[in-house]
């Protein structure tokens, strides 16, 4: 067994192990967000604090960026309005319904990105 092949196998295994965890995390996020937004719609009055924030990305490959943008958009309450890939670092512009504290909002998004990259980059290392 060559070293190269063993590396790939190992990474695949890591991915497989981490993916369910990520999916679980995202599902919880997804459902909670749904509840939040549902409450926002049903209850009288408004708790809205919308903002459009720039999320600077660790992600680099088109696939990483696309999946992240996809997940953010899929989640109620957050919406990607623009994707910048030619800038360094790449950035997403995200519209949040409840982003009264933009920094907290950005932190949560960053957390999601980290978790995603952990699945997609089994070596765990940062790429420049």
């Amino acid at each position, binding site marked *: 067994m060559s070293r190269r092949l063993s590396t790939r196998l190992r990474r695949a295994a890591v991915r497989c192990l981490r993916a369910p965890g990520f999916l679980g995390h995202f599902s919880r996020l997804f459902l909670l967000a749904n509840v939040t937004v549902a409450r926002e*719609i049903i209850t009288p009055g408004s708790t*809205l604090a*919308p*903002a459009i924030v720039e999320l600077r990305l660790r992600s680099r490959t088109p696939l990483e960026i696309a999946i992240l943008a996809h997940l953010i958009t899929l989640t109620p309450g957050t919406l990607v*309005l623009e994707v910048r890939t030619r800038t360094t670092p790449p950035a997403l512009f995200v519209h949040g*319904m409840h982003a009264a504290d933009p920094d907290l909002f950005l932190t949560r998004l960053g957390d999601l990105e980290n978790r995603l990259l952990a699945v997609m980059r089994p070596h765990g290392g940062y790429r420049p």
Partner: protein
Amino acid sequence: MTAQHLLGHALAALGTGLVALAALGLLRLPDAYNRINAVSKAAALGVSLVLLAVLFLMPTPTTATVLLLGTALQLLTSPFGAYAAGRAAYRSGSPLTAATHRDDLRDHE
């Protein structure tokens, strides 16, 4: 009515409720961005629930295949519409509600 049917109906009602909620959101939320934010996602979940309900109500292998594939596709494709709509809204100058307290995108232009 079996438990399976009961569950099916409950899921269907929940899913439909979410879709209806999305429609309500359409009316209640103040600007296009918030509407997009609410509508597509709530609806995605709602539809997924309805499809699951159908699986309970008409359980056959074909139905299962179709519905599971359909659910997956729904979750896969609904963000595309939302992203395109949001981007178009911003680029076409759809106004943000006054409550929007930060707009990095404008600062960036």
